[in-house]
């Protein structure tokens, strides 16, 4: 097989492969250009935080994005660290935050993060009316941000607060916002989003929280980073090693089924071409060229030959002699044998049928 034929044969798979690569690149580029998702610092969609970051930068606050615990360790007292998803923090991340000298804002932290970073604050069940009423009145705590914000629309998690921590907007023993030393816990991510930034006191709250120092470290912990247990670790040992052994068993099965009883026997076979191929080819050429005149002439000549054979005349006998049947047929026969060329294929088909009829009706 020549290289060209090989390429031609592989064209389909190559095209599909190229399409997949191009589509992947396009998606990757499109995804990389604008961040998407909740609390994405560059995000321009409703759930992103692009607006907040833009306003902070306008006010002269430097906003850096961090994804790894090492980036957080060096944060000094002039920095506010916003932890977007504390639930993703591994032990390393929590340790790094605890040792950082910066102010920390935790957005909707879970139990582990609270325990390590904010002593005195525990997750609690939200009373139903807190969620339905929406706006909570006065903060009732000394946090400057809460004071600046005033009444606030907060949804999400609430916390039980015990000294030394202080709760804000407390109602029925639980608070959606809590302060413990340099750490602020906020039960909801909504105030930071583009969609909700301009509602109630959200803007004041978030600006005051993050604008207190010249630098903000926007910490988006990587999922699974920092020593989280992987999927493989979660699978029971038995399943894991059983699967490994089963794969080996698959290999043995492949060896069993793959071993042939002796080599394949090849054979040289003769060429097989239908002898009527050329005739069919000629028919297709006539048809493609629309050679009705030629076709009609051939059909007429053949009909003449058959007529002559029936009457015992030489094949070049005159039409009158060939079509000497009943008087009524004679004109029609002459027209059939010597008439004009058919104008379309349907006429040619009719001509063939009528010539057949003429030959059959001739004694």
């Amino acid at each position: 097989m020549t290289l060209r034929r090989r390429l031609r044969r592989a064209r389909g798979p190559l095209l599909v492969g190229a399409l997949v690569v191009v589509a992947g690149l396009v998606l990757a580029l499109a995804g990389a250009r604008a961040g998407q998702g909740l609390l994405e610092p560059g995000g321009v969609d409703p759930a992103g935080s692009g607006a907040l970051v833009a306003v902070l930068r306008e006010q002269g606050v430097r906003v850096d994005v961090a994804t790894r615990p090492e980036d957080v360790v060096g944060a000094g007292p002039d920095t506010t660290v916003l932890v977007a998803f504390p639930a993703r923090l591994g032990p390393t991340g929590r340790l790094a935050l605890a040792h950082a000298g910066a102010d920390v804002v935790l957005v909707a932290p879970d139990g582990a993060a609270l325990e390590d970073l904010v002593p005195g604050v525990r997750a609690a069940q939200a009373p139903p009316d807190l969620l339905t009423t929406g706006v909570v009145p006065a903060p009732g705590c000394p946090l400057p941000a809460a004071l600046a914000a005033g009444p606030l629309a907060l949804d999400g998690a609430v916390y039980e607060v015990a000294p030394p921590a202080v709760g804000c907007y407390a109602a029925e023993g639980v608070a959606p916002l809590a302060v413990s030393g340099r750490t602020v816990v906020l039960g909801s991510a909504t105030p930071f989003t583009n969609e909700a930034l301009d509602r109630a006191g959200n803007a004041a709250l978030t600006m005051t929280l993050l604008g207190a120092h010249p630098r903000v470290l926007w910490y988006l912990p990587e999922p699974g980073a920092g020593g989280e247990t992987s999927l493989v670790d979660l699978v029971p040992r038995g399943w894991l090693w059983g699967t490994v052994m089963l794969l080996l068993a698959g290999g043995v099965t492949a060896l069993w089924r793959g071993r042939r009883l002796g080599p394949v026997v090849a054979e040289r076979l003769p060429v097989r071409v239908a002898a009527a191929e050329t005739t069919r080819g000629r028919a297709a050429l006539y048809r493609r060229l629309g050679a009705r005149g030629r076709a009609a002439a051939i059909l007429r000549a053949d009909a003449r030959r058959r007529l002559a054979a029936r009457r015992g005349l030489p094949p070049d006998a005159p039409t009158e002699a060939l079509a000497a049947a009943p008087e009524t047929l004679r004109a029609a026969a002459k027209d059939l044998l010597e008439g004009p060329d058919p104008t379309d294929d349907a006429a040619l088909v009719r001509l063939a049928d009528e010539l057949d009829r003429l030959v059959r009706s001739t004694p």
Partner: protein
Amino acid sequence: MALSGRAALAAVVGALVVGLLVPSVAGVLGIVAALLVAVVIDLVRAGSPAALHLERAEELVQVRLSEEAATTVVVVNPSRRRVVGLVRDAWPPSCGAAGDVHRLDVPAGERRRVTTTLRPTRRGEHAAATVTVRAWGPLGLAARQRSRAVPGRVRVLPEFASRRHLPSRLARLRELDGRRAVQVREAGTEFDSLREYVRGDDVRSIDWRASARSTDLVVRTWRPERDRHVLVVLDTGRTAAGLVGEGTSGAPRLDASLDAALLLAALAARGGDRVDLLAVDRAVRASVIGARDPLPAMTAALSGVEPTLVETDMRLLAATVLTRASRRSLVVLFTGLDDAAVAEGLEPVLGPLLHRHTLLVAGVADPAVASLALGRGSGEAVYGAVAATVAAEERRAVVGRLQRRGVEVVDAPPDELAPAVADRYLALKARGRL
């Protein structure tokens, strides 16, 4: 070496053991090690296929196409270990060796015969491929395997389907013989014997000179000429390769020609004529000259003849015919009746052939073209009919040209060719044209 389904099953059971009882690397390694040890033991304890003596009971098997033949491999085990397993006697696909895998159980020092049935689908001589022996170990987990060539051939003879026409043609031949014995001398007869006149004999056949020497009236009897020479020539060039017949069931023109040639040879040999054979394209492919019993010799010689995709060298063909047939003969040439091939190949060399011999040209007509010519009812069918009519007209013209030059021509579809050629031979013989 080969592994068994049992080994695979053991590995799956091993997976269960690892999963339920010892879920650790050690468990996996342990099971793998156990399996490996078992496999090695099996391999070591298995009988040795290499130690077996394999020989074929018959080196050459002859079989007619579409009939069955059996070929036997004798497996001798001279070693001291029993060999249990499988043996496969592999043949090329067209030999039709279905069920070529057999169970094998040869105790030490004994022998077994393994018979494979062949139902060939293609003419010619085919060599056996390899014989493979797989010997399982005592645990049935692993086997030793060895393939070896055990020479053997199968010669697939032409089907000779036209045999069924032979009895009726032989009867005609005898009739010809008998009729001539009481009639007067004609062309194509030779003197047979003198016998007493009986009432009813033609008075013109009375031999007066012999009668004068005898007390009775004596008549001469005549019989058809015998010991004439028939030379069958097969053109195995490209025109013989085309498949004739409907659809995929078509067979090459050569097959029909072969069939007709065999019937003619059988008939002529019974008729007391000498039959020789040539198969020619650009070289002489087969040649049977002066065989005492021509039919088996020709059948064997033609078994391996295949059409080749080259233009036949008609000069070579004519020259070979002229050198091989020294006295006046009936030359029966099976060839294509295509316009161009005949005009450029056969016609230029007709002169010397006709000068020395009587020439009968037999061509295989294509039923597919004949049915194409009847197409009506749609544009496609009518154009097909037109093309087929043109082809038929060209063929008629070729036949006409040949006949005008004094060549006998038979143009018949494949299943009618053999009887048509046989009939023409009988007619020529009756007319004394041999």
